[in-house]
């Protein structure tokens, strides 16, 4: 690539921004007794390093599960163990059993930040760069611009570096869409084993690969491929879970830790359907617990089914990416016990379609960052979040000139508006409406940020409602676009409304 230096510059810029953000405060800094996610990660290092593998997921006198018990799949635990070895080498106090609880120091913060940066540098950033290089039908310049935008996406930077949470891989998507199916499925299995939330993406993966097998013919090549894929999946899972397979109780306990169904429908302020409906209707009080689970399960399934069926029948990398978006979004909107941070799982695939539908993706990514504002405010990260959001916005606006690309074709809403025009011949103002909506929502976000910062917390509820409102407008449109050309999908849009 003749413009490798620009790509290098982009990567370096991304790294610089990440590191400068990491100089800010972190989740739960100086807030005993529970601290925050930062302490959780440190605690995991302590546990994995000091306890035998069999006790990691069990409550014991050395491992109080109420205090940031390990609730991520085994791969995360192994990663913690690896970091713990490094920590042990630098300063054993950081991970001493019991005595290191709530350990905080400048050097330790530096160490923790460095672990994130290195993980990012080794896994996430190469994946982004490769993804952008593999994009077809766009110029080199656009590829670089695309990489810049993805790397500057503030949500991930702020949560990983500011709030403290380890990033996850998008190697799977990359592998599968580049036709390296085995590598892709291996990477995706690892991702699932790293963080169970990755299951949000599992359905499109499954459908896409299945569709590919069908396409090649179930009796010949397709079957071979299917067996190979199944083998990869089983092998990688077995490898990760090997230490826990010795006893039945072990494996069950891990599973129980991973899927804590007994929490609640949603945590405090998540921008999904349940939370916004509960402004009018207190679902939590009306429906019993198990009904909530069933309802949310059914709705999720219903909402993601059309896209998945379509993908299975006509597998294509592009459709795959769009289905990833819509599936993750349905999970986020309808499923049980969603955390604000889960929006990142939606944002990641949205980043992948950035070059195809720049306007909508930018809009979505901005809103998604904004939806995490309460979380960021709690951690005193207002400053970096405003700055990075603006940077992201500027990057997207200049590299894609998003405001000029709002015609119906660019928005992938052609078929939709054509079908509406059958009933309403004068329906030609869609692009303009969307442009206005965008500006209105940006202004609302700015105003809301100002309000949440300046006004007292008790008035948060009305704010939140409007947050959700702008949110919903957005999610509806993005759901709609994923199903372009597919009539079944379109039925979904009014349903979401």
């Amino acid at each position: 690539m003749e413009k490798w230096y620009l790509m290098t510059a982009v990567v370096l810029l991304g790294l610089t921004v990440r590191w400068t953000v990491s100089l800010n405060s972190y989740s739960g800094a100086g807030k005993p007794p529970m601290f925050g996610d930062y302490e959780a990660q440190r605690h995991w290092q302590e546990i994995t390093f000091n306890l035998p593998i069999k006790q990691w997921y069990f409550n014991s006198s050395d491992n109080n599960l109420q205090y940031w018990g390990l609730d991520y799949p085994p791969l995360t635990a192994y990663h913690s163990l690896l970091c713990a070895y490094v920590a042990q080498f630098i300063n054993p106090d950081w991970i001493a059993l019991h005595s290191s609880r709530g350990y905080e120091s400048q050097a330790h913060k530096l160490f923790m930040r460095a672990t994130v940066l290195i993980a990012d540098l080794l896994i996430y950033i190469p994946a982004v760069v490769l993804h952008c290089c593999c994009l077809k039908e766009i110029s080199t310049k656009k590829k670089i611009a695309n990489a810049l935008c993805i790397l500057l996406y503030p949500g991930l930077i702020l949560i990983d570096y500011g709030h403290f949470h380890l990033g996850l891989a998008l190697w799977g998507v990359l592998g599968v869409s580049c036709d390296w199916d085995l590598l892709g499925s291996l990477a995706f299995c690892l991702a699932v084993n790293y963080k169970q939330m990755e299951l949000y993406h599992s359905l499109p993966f499954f459908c896409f690969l299945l569709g590919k097998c069908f396409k090649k013919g179930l009796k010949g090549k397709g079957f071979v491929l299917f067996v190979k894929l199944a083998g990869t999946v089983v092998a990688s899972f077995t490898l990760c879970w090997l230490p826990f397979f010795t006893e039945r109780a072990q494996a069950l306990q891990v599973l129980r830790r991973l899927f804590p169904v007994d929490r609640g429908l949603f945590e405090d302020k998540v921008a999904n359907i349940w939370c916004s409906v509960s402004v009018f209707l207190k679902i939590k009080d009306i429906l019993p617990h198990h009904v909530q689970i069933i309802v949310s399960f059914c709705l999720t399934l219903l909402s993601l089914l059309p896209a998945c069926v379509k993908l299975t029948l006509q597998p294509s990398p592009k459709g795959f990416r769009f289905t990833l978006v819509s599936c993750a979004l349905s999970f986020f909107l309808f499923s049980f016990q969603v955390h604000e941070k889960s929006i990142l799982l939606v944002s990641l695939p949205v980043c992948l379609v950035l070059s195809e539908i720049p306007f909508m993706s930018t809009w979505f990514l901005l809103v998604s960052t904004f939806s995490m504002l309460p979380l960021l405010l709690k951690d005193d990260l207002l400053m970096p979040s405003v700055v990075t959001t603006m940077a992201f916005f500027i990057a997207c606006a200049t590299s894609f000139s998003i405001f000029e690309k709002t015609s119906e074709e660019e928005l992938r809403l052609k078929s939709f508006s054509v079908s509406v025009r059958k009933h309403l011949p004068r329906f030609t103002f869609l692009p303009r409406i969307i442009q206005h909506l965008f500006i209105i929502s940006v202004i609302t976000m700015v105003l809301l940020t100002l309000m949440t910062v300046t006004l007292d917390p008790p008035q948060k509820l009305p704010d939140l409602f409007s947050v959700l409102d702008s949110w919903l407008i957005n999610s509806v449109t993005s759901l709609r676009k994923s199903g372009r050309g597919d009539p079944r999908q379109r039925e979904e849009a009014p349903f979401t409304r």
Partner: protein
Amino acid sequence: MRIKWVECAALSVMAALSVMTGGGSWFLALALGVTLLKCLLIPTYHSTDFEVHRNWLAITHSLPISQWYYEATSEWTLDYPPFFAWFEYALSHVAKYFDQEMLNVHNLNYSSSRTLLFQRFSVIFTDALFVYAVHECCKCVDGKKACKELTEKPKFILSVLLLWNFGLLIVDHIHFQYNGFLFGLMLLSIARLFQKRHMEGAFLFAVLLHFKHIYLYVAPAYGIYLLRSYCFTANKPDGSIRWNSFSFVRLISLGLTVFLVSALSLGPFLALNQLPQVFSRLFPFKRGLCHAYWAPNFWAVYNALDKVLSVIGLQLKLLDPKKIPKASMTSGLVQQFQHTVLPSVTPLVTLICTLIAILPSIFCLWFKPQGPRGFLRCLILCALSSFMFGWHVHEKAILLAILPMSLLSVGKAGDASIFLILSTTGHYSLFPLLFTAPELPIKILLMLLFTIYSISSLKTLFRKEKPLFNWMETFYLLGLGPLEVFCEFVFPFTSWKLKYPFIPLLLTSVYCAVGITYAWFKLYVSVFTDPPVGKTKKQ
């Protein structure tokens, strides 16, 4: 505090929105991008210069003018010219809305979070002038090379080189100083000279001199250029001077401008009979030959040579250990030291050396005028020569050569190569300014970002000409990598750390001194060997 800057943020979002809708303006995106990066740097380490400027805010705010240059509660007394004092005075009237406490002279080392925010934002906001100046400079770059690609246009490259300059970023926004808007003034005055608006250029430079007197270093270039190319309105066909074309009106108007600016600045102190005190503050010759850490100039090599010779002398028993002064440079942090083998250097010697180094370039400017570009070369040579031989030179002064050199670099392949050597070594020599662990990745990443970009983009720009570096230069520049690894990652773990703590600093400054001397030399050679421009442009 929060409210304020969130409002500002909101305003700039609106501005950005309105501009972006008008079509992708790359310059604005670059400027805004770097501004946001500066905002991210707010919580980073800041040096004692932070306290220096806070103290000046307090002095100018709470004391009458007559006290400004006498006040000495803090050790960081006011030692910039009056305009800068007025600038601090103006800032202090905004500062009082942030935190009244920082304006108390006796509140030493006060740094509340609001103070930090105010000071950092004051640097970021005044940088607007720098951005404007860069914009003007970009207009002066002739776009002969018509490229379709935006990223290969000289204008684009120049604006990145200036706006995203590594040195300015770390000196102003991490280390803390107000160089941005001062360099903005300088670049603006250079741009005005390029645009043939000489009076404005002279005025801006006079103002600049009264902001910070370090720019006196480049004053000879301004003086001679204005005299030769502005006061003499015509040349003979062979380019030599035509004496009868001298315009008294122009000379007088120039003189008047400079005089009025100086009167405005120094007048009040003249009236108070305080000029000697002001000057003693501005030119403190009591300080040592080298700054706390050796700037990579001729004297760094000289000192290192002295050190090496004394060690050899001790080994060979040629020197008597008892006669060696105790305060020799064991720690690199000593302000003054005596040389053991080589003769000691006095301020007068450095002054003479500097003058000798500057003279050829001045002669060249007078006898071989090459228009504004020739002036720019002379200006850079003045800055570099005084950096090489000056008294108590600070390593930050290298920016005085690097920034104007960026303007030249996009014009000619030879200049580009000099610029790259100069900027890379000069920027690397700034590394010891930031010695705290959290800033280590920032400085390395930003340095890589700037260096890789500048080298590759200039290479792309001049790809049709011969390669920018020969093998020796390549080898030298690549050597900076291992040097950094040794100084920051290997040395702290060796046993020498306690015994010879000065080694990394010494290595850095000597190694960089070699590169900067080389660049200086090469620039001089290019000035003398370049053919004169056929016709000197007439007014």
